[in-house]
């Protein structure tokens, strides 16, 4: 029978030691974008994982060489599209460092303001998607997701009022920021912060009093202190493993030195510890936003006059590296300028990329269901991994 010969039977791979190779992604409900994990299973237990990345590569670093200093910030926001504000900030900070350009105080405050709002928005999306990974789109996870998205929307409304955009903002520019706060924005922001602060209590009540959530999160995907240092994870992952490393504190940039905030540290290193770190970060970010609104100085928002052509900003020859604490960890940008209107070279250091490198160390030995829980707790954004 020709038909029968043409049939291709999927290799089940139950020979000998009963191992099954299963492909998760790049098209998978919990792939968080386009992550591909090739799992080797023995029954339900994962014994090896082969992580494949690169499905979202868009030549970002090459693009940066072909776009001027005025054009690129809005493209930089597409590296980490979930937290676009911080990606822009990294790029313009690098340009300002190499070009030795001053930034007015009001602009510095506004940069901190949007960076912290962005952290809250990004953590909202993380909480929702992580719970959805554990609870399913047809279960309690979806409930948390919809709640968290509701709060993220409120912050996106603030950004829309500020910049006119909801995802990729183009808010930062070399020498300052592009937009000043519109009338009534401060009050709206304060109301939103009060509302979000109340909701975070609600999430904690819903999750931490829930035994099923705890058994899924506690003791799962433990990153030891040594492993965290060896692999070089950053952001909530390293703080969840007992190391209080936060660029905002160790090397304050912009105007972070002016504000009072805590850097949460958890010792356990499991998914629950990372969850706790982010929940405290929600509150600390709200605290910083309130301090910025209270202490916002008057003055210009940019040290440079508005440009009339895209090639007008020129940076003298030199090179420099800046790093900031994004929602996912340390985000870096290395810039080489040759005196023209475009960078000579640019290198991104994505937080998600180095965080993802820890997966092959912690996934083997856990169950299939834990793979998605661990993936979610790492909170990768593939725009930033593949660039």
């Amino acid at each position, binding site marked *: 029978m020709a038909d029968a010969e*043409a*049939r*291709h*039977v*999927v290799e*089940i791979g139950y020979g000998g030691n009963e191992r*099954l190779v*299963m*492909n*998760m992604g790049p098209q*998978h*409900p*919990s792939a968080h974008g386009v992550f591909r994990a090739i799992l080797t*299973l023995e*029954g*339900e237990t994962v014994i090896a994982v082969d992580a494949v990345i690169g499905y979202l590569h868009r030549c970002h670093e090459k693009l940066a060489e072909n776009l001027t200093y005025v054009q690129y910030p809005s493209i930089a926001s597409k590296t980490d599209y979930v937290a676009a504000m911080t990606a822009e900030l990294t790029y313009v900070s690098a340009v300002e460092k190499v070009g030795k350009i001053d930034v007015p105080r009001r602009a510095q405050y506004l940069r901190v303001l949007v960076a912290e709002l962005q952290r809250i928005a990004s953590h909202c999306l993380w909480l929702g998607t992580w*719970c*959805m*990974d*554990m*609870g*399913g*789109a*047809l*279960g*309690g*996870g*979806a*409930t948390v997701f*919809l*709640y968290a998205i*509701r709060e993220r929307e409120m912050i996106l409304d603030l950004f829309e009022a500020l910049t006119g955009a909801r995802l990729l903002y183009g808010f930062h520019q070399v020498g300052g920021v592009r937009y000043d706060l519109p009338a009534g924005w401060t009050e709206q922001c304060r109301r939103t912060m009060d509302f979000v602060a109340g909701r975070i209590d609600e999430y904690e009540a*819903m999750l931490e009093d*829930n035994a*099923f*959530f705890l*058994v*899924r999160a506690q003791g799962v995907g433990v990153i030891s202190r040594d492993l965290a240092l060896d692999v070089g994870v950053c952001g909530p992952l390293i703080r969840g493993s007992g190391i209080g490393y936060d660029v905002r504190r160790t090397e304050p940039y912009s105007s972070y030195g002016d504000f009072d905030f805590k850097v949460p540290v958890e010792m356990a290193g499991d998914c629950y510890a990372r969850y706790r770190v982010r929940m405290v970060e929600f509150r600390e970010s709200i605290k910083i936003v309130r301090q910025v609104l209270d202490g916002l100085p008057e003055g210009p928002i940019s040290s440079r006059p508005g440009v009339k052509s895209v090639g007008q900003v020129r940076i003298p020859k030199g090179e420099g590296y800046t790093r900031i604490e994004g929602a996912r960890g340390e985000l870096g940008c290395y810039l080489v300028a040759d005196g023209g209107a475009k960078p000579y070279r640019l290198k991104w250091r994505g937080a998600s990329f180095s965080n993802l490198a820890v997966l092959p160390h912690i996934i083997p030995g856990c*169950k*299939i*269901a*834990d*793979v*998605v829980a661990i993936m979610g707790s790492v909170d990768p954004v593939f725009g930033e991994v593949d660039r």
Partner: protein
Amino acid sequence: MPPLVHHVLAGAILLGALVGLVSYVTLLERKFAARMQSRIGPYYVGWPHGWLQPIADGIKLALKEDVVPDAADRWVYNLAPLAFLVPCVLIFATIPFAPGLGVADLNIGVLFFLAVSSLEIVGLFMGGWGSNNKYALISAMRAVNQIISYDLPFIFAALVPVVLTGSLRLSAIVEAQRGLFGWHVFAFGVIGPLAFLAFLVATLAAENRVPFDILEAESELVAGFRVEYSGMKFALIQLAEYAHMIGTSFLGALLFLGGWLGPGSQHVLVGALWFLLKAMVVFLVVTWVRWSFVRIRVDQILAISWKLLLPLTLVLLMATAFVVALRGAAGA
């Protein structure tokens, strides 16, 4: 009317009612979930509040292309939805909706229900195996694990009212629950409530709902055993799942909540209404749990069953038997 005609007619009516009930229970669940998640739910198809949505869904599924994977085991793959559906519908044969209203009030009603409902695993496994898909295979593996583990506590919990009544006939069990606090859920202090709780938990697992829906587990296994199904076959699987869910809700209402008993239940229709109401309460409790918990892992699910639920239901059953025997001795 000859009994054969009567039974065929009653069966046909029940089957029709069942399809309608299942369709509208999905709407109820969607509205309920939407309320929990501060959404609106189905709204546009049919005014008011999208009441035509289930019909639109049915038509959509019927019109979909039926895809059979090249590598599938055709016979097993095509038969699986039927093998899954038949036991799930058959459980309704023995359910009395009101005194005298039902297809067949068997004297072994509870036994029949439990035996037939545990047959659904055959269809599930056929679907998972026949699809020749790794996600489906792992899901089928989990299904066998889970259903075998939870059928035992489910049966033991369901046997508590049987022991209390001394009959396997469902209508007799209902009649034994007359009185203000006669429902079996209130029986003997803690025994009744605990047995009902154990029954609910085992129900969740038997229905494969969150937090026990590791068969479907769409964040890990995409859609589990039904990942390759589309069109009418998918619709049949959905129908079977919901029919099973409603069936177990009916059983819960009959065994623990006094079935059709309630004010005015001497009229058949009022009694049937009470019964549906109680069954929907059980269904909504299960739905409520579903939309507020996260899924737990397969090893944790098995641990709950073997280490907690099974000993608990066994002890409950023994305690019930002991109390009933004592009462019998005292009476004699």
